[in-house]
Structure formats: structure tokens, C-alpha cells
């Protein structure tokens, strides 16, 4: 056990899995960096240096820099997964899904079903999501609701370095296609992470705070916002539980219903665009299955229905904030 960043935690997960299983390969744009150049052959490790150090250890046969052709990247990974490898494909920004979504949702995600249960597609797609980097409308989206919508895909979204490693290892070992969401503002977040390999099963949400007045349900980066708020409102004698969903598909319905049962009041915090997102999904689940436990309207905190603005002044207003959560807490308590 030692302190590691989110970045190091994923890097270590990949390295250790590659050592353990020679079928694991990594491919994507500049996952090593430097292909065909005269300079450093481990120049980048992806734009956030998450895969740095892999090429020197495992060689370019297993750490493959590709052209900028996401359909071919994901499709190559999907085809390789279908025929015996366990590829980790790097989609870089999830905003780029628009040029390759077919290979994800119509190919990899449906092989097993279309082929009558005979295909196994152990594909992991790593991708970055979210705002805060002033990266503007085409590099700041969340989009995980879209992947969650698709039967056949699994959607994983860790909120801290410990979970990141355990969930990533599970993703690589999982026999279904998994889309692994990494918030681009979290790579430097630190936490205690075991040095050895471990897995966190999919479909098991995690109560990061216990509480009885209000349940805050969230995923990925905004879990930390919820934790912060839960800690802060304690001094006002408000007790919030925080439920970190960890995986959006499969979804841990039991823990969600438990959170509702214990509090009767729910706020769902979701950084994705508000229509047909995960917040609405959880809210609808609760209204359907735990209606009688509810003491107040189910509230959702999300950005507005607009693209992500570039200007720091606007982006800060756009993103869910602690203030907003606190205001909502006091509203539903009254």
C-alpha cells in the first residue's frame, strides 16, 4: 500500500495485467508516442502520460501507436478481442466517440447477442471525460449516459485512485466490452493504493459516507464533491450519505434502494447533460421501486442543457458545485 495518483494507479493496473497475461495489449494514438520519429520512443504515454513506460517494458508489438482513425482503432481492438486478445483501446477523449461509435455499440457491444451467445469480447476502452480543463465544447463532455443506454456494454467510472485500479483490473479481466471513464481533472488526485493486484467487482456501489437525512448519489469526479458537502453540512447537523455508483452498467440497484430507504430524500449529482442522463435514470428507478420510501421530490444536480463553454468564467458556472448541492439539501429538508 502506498500513496498513488489516479494516473499512477491506472498505469500500474495496466502494467501488472500486461505482465500477468500476454494477451493484454494496448493500442491508440500515441499510447507510447514517438512512432517513426528519431526521438524518444516513449514520448507521451497518451496525452496525460497514463500509459507512459509501457512501451519500453512490453515493446511496440504490445503497445501500439496508431494513426488517427478511431473506427479502425476500436474496430481493431474489437476484432482482436473476438479472436483471442484482451485489448485495451485508448479513445483519448470520449468526445471522439462520434467517429467510431458504430464499432463500439453495433459491433463489440452486440457480437455476443447477435451471434447467439457464442462470442466473447474482452475489450476495454479507456476514455477521458468531463469539464474543468477549459477544453471547450468538443473536449469536455461526459457522454456516459449514451454508453449506459446501450445493452451489451459495461460502463465503469471510478471516483478515486483505489477504485480506479481495482475496477480497471476487473475491466481487463472481464469477458464483456467495458468502457472505462477517467475524469481528466482527476489524474493528479492521490490516494492509498495497494501495490498488488486486486479487483473490484462491477455492479457494487460504495457508500463513501453514511447518513440518514439525505442521500447524495453520484459517480466519478462529482462523488468527491458530494463527500466534501457531506462533511461540510455535518456542522449544521445534517447527515448525508454518499453513494458512489462506481459502475453505471451494471447498476447496483440494491444499494440505491438502500440509500433511499435510509433517508427518504435523494439528490443525484451528475456532471453529464441533463436530458436522458444517469441522474434521470436513477431518479426513475427510485420512483418506480421505492416510491413509498420517499419523503421529498427527487432532485438532480446537473449542468444546464447547453454545450460546455470554454470561458473559465462560464465553465465554473456550468459545472455542478458544492454550493448548488448545499442549497438543494436545505431546500428538500424544508
Amino acid at each position, binding site marked *: 500500500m502506498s500513496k498513488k495518483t489516479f494516473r499512477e494507479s491506472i498505469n500500474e493496473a495496466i502494467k501488472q495485467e500486461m505482465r500477468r497475461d500476454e494477451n493484454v495489449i494496448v493500442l491508440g494514438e500515441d499510447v507510447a508516442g514517438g512512432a517513426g520519429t528519431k526521438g524518444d520512443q516513449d514520448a507521451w504515454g497518451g496525452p496525460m502520460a497514463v500509459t507512459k513506460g509501457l512501451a519500453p517494458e512490453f515493446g511496440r508489438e504490445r503497445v501500439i501507436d496508431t494513426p488517427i482513425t478511431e473506427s*479502425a482503432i476500436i474496430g481493431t481492438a474489437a476484432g482482436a478481442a*473476438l479472436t483471442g486478445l484482451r485489448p485495451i483501446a485508448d479513445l483519448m477523449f470520449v468526445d471522439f466517440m462520434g467517429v467510431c461509435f458504430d464499432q463500439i455499440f453495433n459491433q463489440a457491444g452486440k457480437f455476443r447477442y447477435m451471434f447467439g451467445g457464442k462470442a466473447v469480447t474482452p475489450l476495454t476502452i479507456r476514455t477521458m471525460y468531463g469539464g474543468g480543463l477549459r477544453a471547450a465544447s468538443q473536449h469536455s463532455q461526459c457522454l456516459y449516459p449514451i454508453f449506459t443506454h446501450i445493452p451489451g456494454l459495461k460502463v465503469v467510472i471510478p471516483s478515486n485512485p483505489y477504485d480506479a485500479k481495482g475496477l480497471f483490473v476487473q475491466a481487463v479481466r472481464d469477458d*464483456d466490452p467495458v468502457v472505462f471513464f477517467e475524469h481528466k481533472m482527476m489524474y493528479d488526485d492521490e490516494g492509498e493504493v495497494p501495490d498488488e493486484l486486486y479487483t473490484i467487482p462491477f455492479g457494487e456501489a460504495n457508500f463513501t459516507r453514511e447518513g440518514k437525512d439525505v442521500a447524495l448519489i453520484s459517480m466519478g469526479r462529482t462523488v468527491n464533491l458530494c463527500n466534501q458537502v457531506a462533511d461540510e453540512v455535518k456542522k449544521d447537523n445534517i447527515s448525508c450519505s454518499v453513494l458512489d455508483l462506481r459502475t453505471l452498467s451494471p447498476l447496483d440497484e440494491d444499494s440505491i434502494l438502500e440509500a433511499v430507504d435510509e433517508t427518504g430524500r435523494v439528490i443525484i449529482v451528475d456532471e453529464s447533460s441533463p436530458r436522458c442522463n444517469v441522474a434521470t435514470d436513477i431518479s426513475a428507478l427510485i420512483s418506480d421501486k421505492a416510491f413509498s420510501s420517499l419523503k421529498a421530490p427527487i432532485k438532480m444536480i446537473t449542468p444546464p442543457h447547453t454545450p460546455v463553454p470554454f470561458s473559465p468564467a462560464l465553465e465554473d458556472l456550468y459545472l455542478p458545485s458544492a454550493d448548488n448541492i448545499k442549497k438543494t439539501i436545505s431546500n428538500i429538508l424544508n
Partner: protein
Amino acid sequence: MQLNREELIKAYQGMCRIREFEDAVHEEFASGALPGFVHLYAGEEASAMGICLNLNDQDTIASTHRGHGHCIAKGCDSKGMMKELFGKKDGICGGKGGSMHIADLTKGMLGANGIVGGGPPLTCGAALTFKTKKTGNVAVCFLGDGASNQGTTAESINMASILKLPAIFVVEDNGYAEATSSDYSVGGNIVDRGKAYGLHAEKVDGTDFFAVHQAAKEAVERAKNNEGPTLLHVKLSRVYGHYEGDAITYRLDEETKDIKDNKDPIKIFKRKVTESGLLEESQLEEIEKSIKKEIEEAVSESKEAKYPVESDLLTDVYVKY
């Protein structure tokens, strides 16, 4: 023509099986017995057979919406396929896939595909597996003239080129994408495109089984010798419409007649092997008869087979969820 007797018989059996299968589907669809969306491969048999006779069960193919021929050529069971088309539980995909999603991974058949251009990226993946694991296998992709324009095709050809993958892209140019002529939709030309992305590329007469077989043989050798991917531009014709139900008004009757009279790869094969004395007429007729019976049985068994039931609805989505 370096094929031995056994291989020639296999070729003829395969082409006849495809034709009989498609003719039967054509009839069953017209009668309303067969549901769904079906695209028939009749007329293109020399391509599937010419290519696939060079492959073993570990080599893979990725196919298209017009996939029955590729499946049969790669060794998929014709009865399991027919049951699949009828939506029956014993179908090759449990009735869940249907005509556009037939697959049999044990035969290296990675799936028909409802998405035009869906197969080329997957082919790179299979080829990458072979390269990584050094299995010495080859991954083949069938695609149409229409699909040759799709961006995924260009990307995949480039990927195969720069990674030197053991892959073969077989562009089956039947002159049409739906109701649109390839003369109209294909800017420049297909062989040049392959070359421009760094592939070995050549044009092949797809009515001539022997031409396809030879070109494929060389392409497979190149792939296995790590000499990189190949693109084959195979010129051929489809007998039926784009899909069943297509009135084919974009094609003049004389063109259809010409296709049936002069571009039928089965007739051409038959003439060649009998004229050259490689096989006898009677032998071929024997084959035709037995294949006909096989397909008739496939249809009647399919009609009698059971549909999947409610408990099948939720299975096969994930390995574990």
C-alpha cells in the same frame, strides 16, 4: 489451374450450395414464409469460394449484409443457417441474429454485418491477433463497391498497411450499391486506392473461379510471408435485386439477362472443367442433385423447427452482468 480433383469438387459443391441456398431463400421469402431483410449472394459465388478455399478454420473472414455465400464458403452449416433465417432456436445464432448476423467463430466466420463498412476494422483486429500471437493465419474481409467508399474501409486499409497485418480486403464490385451504380459512386478507382494506401492491389475477374482462387492464393502467401496486406478488386454481378423485394428498375432487363447468360460463375466453371476434362458432366450433376436435396431438407427442417421462447429473451447479452 493447379487445383486437384478433390478441390475442384469442393469448389463446385460450395458454389452450388450457395446458389441453391439463395434460390430457396428467394422463394421462401416471396411466399411470405421467411421473415426479415435478406440480401442474396447468387451470381457472386466464385468470389466467396475462390477466396475461402485458400483458408483454413483458423483463418477468419468478416462479411457483409450479403453474407450467406461467405458463410457457406467458410464452412458454416447450411441447415443451421437456414434455421437462423427462419428465426428458429436451433439456428446458428439461436434465432437472435438472422440473415445479417450469421456467425460461426469455430469456422473463423466472424459475422455477417448489417453495417456497410463494419467489417474492415474487425478484420484488422483478427489480423492483429494473428500477428501478435504469430499464428501464421490470415484475416479476410469481404466488402462491396459501395462499402469501398465508407471511411472505415480507408482507415482499415491504412491500419493494415502501416502495421503490415496479414489481411486481405476483397472488394466485391457487383456494379451497384443498392440502386446506385459504382460508376457513379466510386471516385477514381478501387485498385489505385489500395495502392495509394500502400497495399498490393489488383483487379480480378469475379466470374472466373480460377482467377479469384489464384489471386487469393498469392495474397494469402504474401500475408503469411509477412509481406503485408492485399486488396483484390473482384468484378462480378448479383443475380437478384439489392434485397428481396427490390423491383430492380434501375437495371435494364437485358443487363439481368446478360448476367444470367454470360456472367454466371457456376456455368462458367462448369464449362471450363468439363471442356478441359477435369471433371465429368455426370459428376457435376450428381453434386447438384445432392446439394439440392440438402437445401430442400434445410428448408423443411427449418419450417418445422421451434422458435425461441420467453426465457431466451434475456440471455446472451453479457457473459456475466
